[in-house]
């Protein structure tokens, strides 16, 4: 044990005595995971993929998983947080089910599966930490051939009023053969104290499955929200992903997408909006393993104040993944002299029969466009808002329609 985390260590011990239902296999897996976490320690900006994300290293060991939580949320407060209170909805409060609309054959909460094996290529220290403290895994299974018309909502609300809390949600989403679904995941942090939400989500798309996904992170100024989303796609499957980050002290989402079989497509749009001293980091990797797959990634960042954004986008095309088409675009808009954007678009291509493009820009509002609008009587601040709206427009084109009014409001308030 080379990492000093007395709070975590004692929480891990206490937890074992609280949850008697843990099978010996799971206890072993979690204990392995915890020791891997200790070996690897919290990620720091010495790691390449964390180069631009400054986690508050000093205070990280203070975050502690709560032992038992009674989700006790005033219904009205909850309603105000929801995008569409009438839809199929699962609300998790600090990882405990607070509200679940009845009759959901697609949802189940299962004890964490014990067959976790540490894989250094796939699992980071935070994955291991997540596993070590995981009690329940939440499963969404869309059966083969079923089409769910209404979006499925998962609200994950991390509540923190006193001690700094660490919450480790684990989600598994499976979309069956020929099935279609829309999934909206919303991560909110509420309360005045620091919180750390460390999410791991696995998504599997079977043959010809189609998933539209919105992953929205909206933290409080004291919150850290870190997420790892791993996506596996089968033949002819379509993944339409959207990541929106609207602050929090540190927000990071790592999307790792594997196009495992031919004719799979991935279309991904991301929007980051940072202000004050926020740190937003999108780490994106798509692997083309088989021929005839298509990936398209569009990302926009708007940074003001002392905010800082990072984008790492990698498209890797394996040797036999011929006829690949891939597009990667990241644009950053700096609204203040102290705003900072870091962008690293990367292509790794191992065969000649591909069409790949990538590009990144960092810039300011176009003074000619601003003057054009103002010269028509539009107030400077409104003109700036119009141009920001125009800048982010391409990153909002694949969002589930139902989320648009909610998001437009959120973005406008920002």
């Amino acid at each position, binding site marked *: 044990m080379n990492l000093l985390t007395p709070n975590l260590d004692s929480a891990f011990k206490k937890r074992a005595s609280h949850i008697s239902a843990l099978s010996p296999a799971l206890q072993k897996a979690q204990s392995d995971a915890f020791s891997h976490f200790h070996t690897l320690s919290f990620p720091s900006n010495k790691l390449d993929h964390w180069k631009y994300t400054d986690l508050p290293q000093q205070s990280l060991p203070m975050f502690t998983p709560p032992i038992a939580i009674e989700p006790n949320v005033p219904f009205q407060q909850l309603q105000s947080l929801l995008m569409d209170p009438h839809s199929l909805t699962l609300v998790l409060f600090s990882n405990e089910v607070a509200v679940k609309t009845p009759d959901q054959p697609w949802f189940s909460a299962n004890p964490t599966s014990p067959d976790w094996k540490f894989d250094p290529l796939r699992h980071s220290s935070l994955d291991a930490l997540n596993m070590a403290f995981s009690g329940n895994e939440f499963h969404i299974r869309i059966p083969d051939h079923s089409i769910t018309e209404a979006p499925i909502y998962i609200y994950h609300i991390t509540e923190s009023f006193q001690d700094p809390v660490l919450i480790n949600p684990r989600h598994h989403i499976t979309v069956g053969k020929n099935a279609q679904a829309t999934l909206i995941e919303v991560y909110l942090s509420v309360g005045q104290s620091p919180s750390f939400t460390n999410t791991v989500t696995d998504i599997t798309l079977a043959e010809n499955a189609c998933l539209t996904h919105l992953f929205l992170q909206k933290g409080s100024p004291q919150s850290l929200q870190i997420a790892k989303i791993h996506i596996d796609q089968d033949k002819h499957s379509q993944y339409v992903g959207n990541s929106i980050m609207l602050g929090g002290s540190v927000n990071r989402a790592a999307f790792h997408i594997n196009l495992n079989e031919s004719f799979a497509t991935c279309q991904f749009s991301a929007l980051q909006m940072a202000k004050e001293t926020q740190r937003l980091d999108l780490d994106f990797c798509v692997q083309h393993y088989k021929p005839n797959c298509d990936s398209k990634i569009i990302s926009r960042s708007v940074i003001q104040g002392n905010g800082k954004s990072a984008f790492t986008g990698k498209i890797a095309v394996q040797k036999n993944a011929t006829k690949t088409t891939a597009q990667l675009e990241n644009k950053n808009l700096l609204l203040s002299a102290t705003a900072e954007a870091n962008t690293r678009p990367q292509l790794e291509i191992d065969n000649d029969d591909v069409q790949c493009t990538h590009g990144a820009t960092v810039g300011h509002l176009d003074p000619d466009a601003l003057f054009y609008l103002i*010269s028509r009587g*539009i107030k400077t601040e409104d003109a700036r808002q119009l141009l920001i709206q125009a800048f982010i427009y391409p990153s909002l084109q694949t969002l589930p329609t139902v989320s648009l009014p909610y998001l437009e409001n959120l973005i406008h308030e920002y």
Partner: protein
Amino acid sequence: MTRPNTILEIKDLHVGINDKPILQGLDLKLEKGKVHALMGPNGSGKSTLANLLARKEDYVVTSGHIQYLGEDLLTLSPEEAAWKGVFLSFQYPVSIPGVTNIQFLKSALNATLKAQGKPVLDAMDFLKIVKDKMAALEMPEALLYRFVNDGFSGGEKKRNEILQMSLLEPTLAILDETDSGLDIDALKAVATGINALRNENRAILLITHYQRLLSYIEPDFVHVLSNGKIIKSGDKSLALELEEKGYAWL
């Protein structure tokens, strides 16, 4: 003292950009109901004057002054100038992908009406007004729902400028090379639009290289700008003379 029917009076104006003098002692007076044409060779300062009047910030005024409706124009911000009735039709209108034309036009008109203390228009009223004005300019309605000037042809961009002018109803309209890049049909349509906006309370400053526009929009006065000052003024016959002889004889 400015006379009541004077809209704009420029006296001995010296303006530079990045230490380079551009306007060097310009005098010009525009009156209600009149159309003034400003001609001159490339680099003579025509567009500098146009942009300065619309209150673009890039310029340094070293001396002289500009009275607009009895007020010092140089103290106004671009939006204040717009609210008080100054309008510049741009030589190169900027395209803004991501903002629809209708959103832009409505924001501009309502911001101006609000600043002028007039009631703003709701979506329905605005749509009716803008559609009428577009019909007069022979503009297809589809241009409302496209992004501002994005992928517009040269003619569509200039018609869109005149549409903005007809919506905002300025007191002083400056048209910077509105004829450039237009074919004959587009030129006629734009000229018809501008002629329809001539009235007794408005002054129009037409900046152009060519006499051609002036055969569709007949000016009351023609001025020649060269090396940052007006070197000759006359009536519309001066434009014909310039077309024939060029600028060198002046």
